[in-house]
Structures are given as C-alpha cells and as structure tokens.
C-alpha cells in the first residue's frame, strides 16, 4: 500500500488520453458507471509504470544541439507525452512549445513537463506557430512536430541523424495514400510542386508535413518568416540548392484525427492548395515566366 502512495497521483489532465472519455462514461447507465468508478480504470498499473519511467525533472537544455518545436493549441490530452518523447531525441535538447490561443492549460502542462513555452493569446495556426518557434530556437538542428501526435522518440531520431549527417532538410517520407486513381488535393499539390521544382524524386514529401528537421544552415538561408507558408519554404529550400532528402515514413495521415464533418469542405485544403500556387508564383518571380525551363526550338515570334 505504501508503495502506491509514494507516487503522487497526477491530476486528470496529466493523465492523458483517458480523460477525454469522461462524458461517454457518464452517458452510460448508473450500474455501468459504478463498475468503472470502482475499478479505477483511469489509473492502473500500466499508466503508473509509464509515469514512473518518465523523467519528471527533465528541463530544456540551456545550450542545446537539438531544438524541438511544437505548436500547441488546446492539446492537453497529449502534450505531456509529446514533450516527453521529444525530450528523448538527443541528450542536449530543448523543447519549444508555441502555445497559441490555448485556454485549457496546455501551456502550464508544457511548462511542467520542462518545455520552454512561448505564449500567444490568439490562435496562429500550425505554420505560423512553427515560424515563431524557429525564431526562438537555439539549437543546430530544428525538429518540427505537432502537439497532438505522439510519435515515439525512436522514430524521431532518424530525422536528427540525417541532419547531423549533412542533410539540410530532412523530410517525412510520407506521400499519403497514392496507390489509387484519385488522391487528395493536397497530396496532388505536393507532388506537382516537387515536379515543377524538378525534384519529382521527392514524390509527395513536403515541408507541409511533420515531422521534418532543418539544419541551422537551412534556417539561416531561408529565414524563419517563410516557414509560415510551408510550400513556399519548400520551394525556397530547393531553389537555394539546399540538400533535401526523404528520411523515414511516418504515417501522419493515420495519426491525425479527422477534424471536419464529412459533408463539410476542409478550409485547410483550399489554404494549402493556395500556398502551393503562391510558391509557384515565387518560383516565377525568381526565374522567368517559364520557371527557368527550356522552350526548346519554339519560334514563337512566327505567330502574331
């Protein structure tokens, strides 16, 4: 009995995933609820083990090599675990949480987990959040992940390793489901941008998808501002001749929850599509109206 008492029972929000199911258990009848309450399903041995394994006194390293940047908005269910995994990617790591428009105490939780928290009252979105985080990052390697996806540290390490080995932009080798005739608009846009950048070998890998890691050199060359429009940053990186590679595949499509109802069109799709159009325009501005491509033997002056 004493052994149990030694571990402080964390509050509900720290417990993570299961707290979200509270309402559901109340909708069941009284008898059912009694069983659940008595059985203490929320705090069982496996959870306790996970918590004891977690390094409670972890803090961001003051002179980090790796900076992990996590934009967060109301993600208290997962943020503690995400930070825990992020802290394990390298011995000298800082975790920067860009809390924007959070009202559920995610920022406090993140601070408690040892992250350096940047607060914004208004929601910024993932991309702008990432740009803000990159601005504050001190490390030589910048890793970008999301606050709502728990990716084990072991699967994040390849990105760090790739950048350490000289890659400037280590991308998630995930193109979405493509073994079919019709694919999602965003998947198509990513493929097309890579094709127009003469990097069709990247397939659908893009800086739009997390996780991805940047070297300090890449950040200095591109600037942190352009990270707020990921396809533009992608185009800039290719145009400036940075070394971009697909690293490992992490199926973020499955990890990412569906946020909109089926009949509703995702506003994000239009935005991302537009981002890609913007980056093609940027290419045009940088090169010529053909994006630097050959006109072969066309003699256009003959037609007037």
């Amino acid at each position, binding site marked *: 009995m004493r052994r149990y008492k030694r571990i402080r029972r964390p509050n509900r929000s720290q417990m993570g995933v299961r707290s979200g199911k509270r309402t559901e258990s109340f909708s069941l009848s009284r008898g059912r609820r009694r069983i659940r309450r008595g059985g203490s399903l929320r705090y069982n041995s496996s959870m306790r083990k996970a918590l004891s394994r977690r390094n409670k006194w972890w803090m961001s390293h003051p002179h980090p090599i790796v900076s992990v940047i996590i934009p967060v908005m109301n993600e208290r269910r997962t943020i503690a675990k995400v930070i825990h995994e992020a802290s394990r990617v390298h011995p000298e790591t800082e975790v920067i949480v860009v809390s924007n428009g959070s009202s559920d105490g995610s920022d406090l939780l993140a601070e408690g987990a040892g992250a350096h928290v940047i607060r914004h009252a208004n929601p910024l*979105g993932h991309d702008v959040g990432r740009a803000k985080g990159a601005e504050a990052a001190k490390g030589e390697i910048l890793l970008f992940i999301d606050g709502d996806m728990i990716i084990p540290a072991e699967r994040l390490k390849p990105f760090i390793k790739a950048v350490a080995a000289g890659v400037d932009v280590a991308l998630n080798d995930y193109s979405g489901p493509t073994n079919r005739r019709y694919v999602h608009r965003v998947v198509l846009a990513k493929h097309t941008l890579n094709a127009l950048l003469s990097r069709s070998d990247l397939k659908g890998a893009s800086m739009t998808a997390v996780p991805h890691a940047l070297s300090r050199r890449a950040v200095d060359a591109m600037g942190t501002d352009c990270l707020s429009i990921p396809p533009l940053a992608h185009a800039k990186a290719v145009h400036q001749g940075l070394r971009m590679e697909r690293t490992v595949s992490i199926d973020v499509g499955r990890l990412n929850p569906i946020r909109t109802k089926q009949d509703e069109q995702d*506003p994000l799709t239009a935005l991302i599509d*537009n981002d890609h159009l913007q980056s093609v325009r940027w290419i045009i501005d940088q090169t010529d109206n053909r994006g630097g491509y050959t006109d072969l033997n066309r003699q256009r002056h003959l037609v007037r």
Partner: protein
Amino acid sequence: MKRKGMKRVKFRRKAQQSRRVAAAVRRSRSRLQRPRHKKRRLRVTQTAVKAKQNKQMKRGSRLHEPSVSASFIQSSEEAGMRDGLLARDAQSQLLDLHLRLKALKQSFRAYYANTCSHLESYEAIMALGTAYQNGYSRAAGPDLALPSVVLIPSSKRHAVIISAMNEQERIGAVLHELERLVPDELIIIVNGSTDMTLQLAREASSAATIVHYPDAIGHDVGRSIGAKLARADVMLFTDSDFQVPAEDLGAFLWAVESGVDVALNDISPFMGTFDSRDAISHCKLWLNCTLGREDLDVNSLTAVPHALSRRTVDTIGVDALSVPPRAHALAVLHGLNVQQVHVVDVITHNRIRATNVGTHNPVAQLILGDHVEAIQEIWNWHGDYLHEPQRNRDQIALRRNGT
C-alpha cells in the same frame, strides 16, 4: 426471514436493473451499428452495378451500339441510292475525286437536315453515314466509285491542321486517313525536315495547303500557324506521328458541331494509379483542379487530337496555342465549353524518341515550363483573389484546432 426476503427483493431489483442496463447498452450499440450495416450493403450493390457495367463494356457493343433503328438506316440507304442516281446523271467522270466527295458530303448533309436531325449521337451519325454511302456508291456505279469516307452532316466548315517534321514514313498514310474526313481545309506545316516529308505531302494531298519552314519551329508553334491560316469554323489538330482512324477524328468535329468549344481527347482510361504516373500527369491534373475542373482529369490541350471552335481561337488568340497548357487554362478561364469527348489511345502508340524518354528529357522540361506559364496565367486572371486565403489564416487555425 424478513431480512432475507428484503435482500432477495433487493437482489431481484438489482438483477432487473442490470438486465435493463444490458438491454439499453445492446440497443444503443445496435443503433450505432445499423448504419454501418446499411453502408456495407450499399457498397455491395454499388460494386455489383459497377461489375455489371464492366462486363457489358468488356462484351463490347451494348454501350457502343448505334442507338438508331433499322428503319432509319434503311431510309438512309435509300436516300443514298436516290442521290447517287442523281449524281450519276449530273456528274460526268471528268470531275475530280475531291469535288465528288464534297458533293457526297453535301447531299448527305441535306438528307440529314431534312429527315433525321433529331439523332445526335455520334454512333448514330456514323451508322447513317455508312448506310447512305453504301446506297450512293451502289447507285452511282463502278466508274464513279468513291473511297469510303466519314460523313459528318455539319453546316460548319472544317479544317484539319497537322505539323510534320521528318515524317516521311508516316505522312502519306496519315494524310490519306485525314482525306477520309473530307475537310474543307487541310493545312500541313512542314518544318525542319531533312527528308522527303515535303515532297510526299505534296504528292499525297493535292488540295492541302502546305507551309514549309526549313528550320524546326516546334509542333505547337506549327499548330498555331495553322490556326492562323485556317478560315474554317472548326479546327481539328492532330499529329503526323501516327495514324488515327478518321472515324475517331470525326467524333471531335461532331462534338464541336454540337456546341463544345474545346473538344479534348480523353486519355484518362490509359492512366494507372496515381503513383505510377509521371510528373507531367501530376501537373496536368493539378492545373485542372486549380481551374476548378476536376472532371477533366488529366486531359488538356497538350494531348492530340483535339478540336477547337472558331470562337475559342478568336477568344484566346492564336499565339496562345503555341503553349498548349496556357491555351487550355485560358479557354477554361474565359468560360468556354471545354469537354473531353472521345478516347483515342495516343499513349501506347506514341513513338519513342531519344528526346521523350526519362524524367529529365527535354520534352518533359518543355511541358513543365508550359505548365508554369499556365499557372502564371491563372495568377494574372485572378490576381488579388488568390491572396485572399492567406488573410484569414488565423481563423482557419481556430477552426482547425477544433474549438
């Protein structure tokens, strides 16, 4: 005893309650599951329908059978015989073949306009045309015999435009097939040819307008020069690389006749899954999506054959045709009626050259550049409107995060 009974009652109540709970849970679960059952069943029926359609397609015919009754075909044949007799009386054998074919086309058009102009499907037109021609040549007799042609009962003038560069092996056969369409104008742009292409073209087709450039000017520039020269209402563009049956080419002309402005070749049946396609197909698909025309799939003016109406050429300008994706984007942006109308396999028949193999071949680079130009055209057209989504990024952030 009393206490025991109380307990029993309590127990019974408890048991009843738990049974009720179990029933409620079961009910709620079944309610959750019922739609899933329905969905599955629906999917099964859908696939069944699809399988049936596929079977019919494979068996051929059913869907492609001419939707015209035997009586119409018979009457067409009789009309052909009647007109053939008249022609035999009117035309002596002095008249050259071209003029006689024109006379045949004209009389078929008159017959179609008078009796069966309600029949609009291309299959029906083809069936009527063949029957009419059979009757015509039977009545006209062997000394006025005509080659089999594709009769399109159109009041509009047709032009066929091809550009050729070093095509001496094929040009004769291609032109022969094009003659079967009996076009009002046939324009051939011979450029950069070091072989017999020019001479062979001259021999093969006496009525054709042939433009010759000693230097290579590019296929697309050649086509736009042809469009500039043409005076017709409908322009059909094809390649001199390979022979497309005149029956297939006629479908494009007929589509423009029935109101389509840009009649595209439908190459989507030859496309595999997304990951097996090349970079250019991705560009084509994305261009159509960006233009708001997902239904066009990967079809654009990049693929031949295609037919344009006079209105299209006048609206987008002949010079735009030098860059096919740009012309395609302009046509859609101008609100012209752009449709894929017919399937011609140009993918598997495409000749393999040194310049069109591999991802970084010059032709692929050219087409990628063309798509950049097309996207720039969209920017020029929409301008500030495309910047709009950037402004409400924070609102989207708010929604995206599900609060």
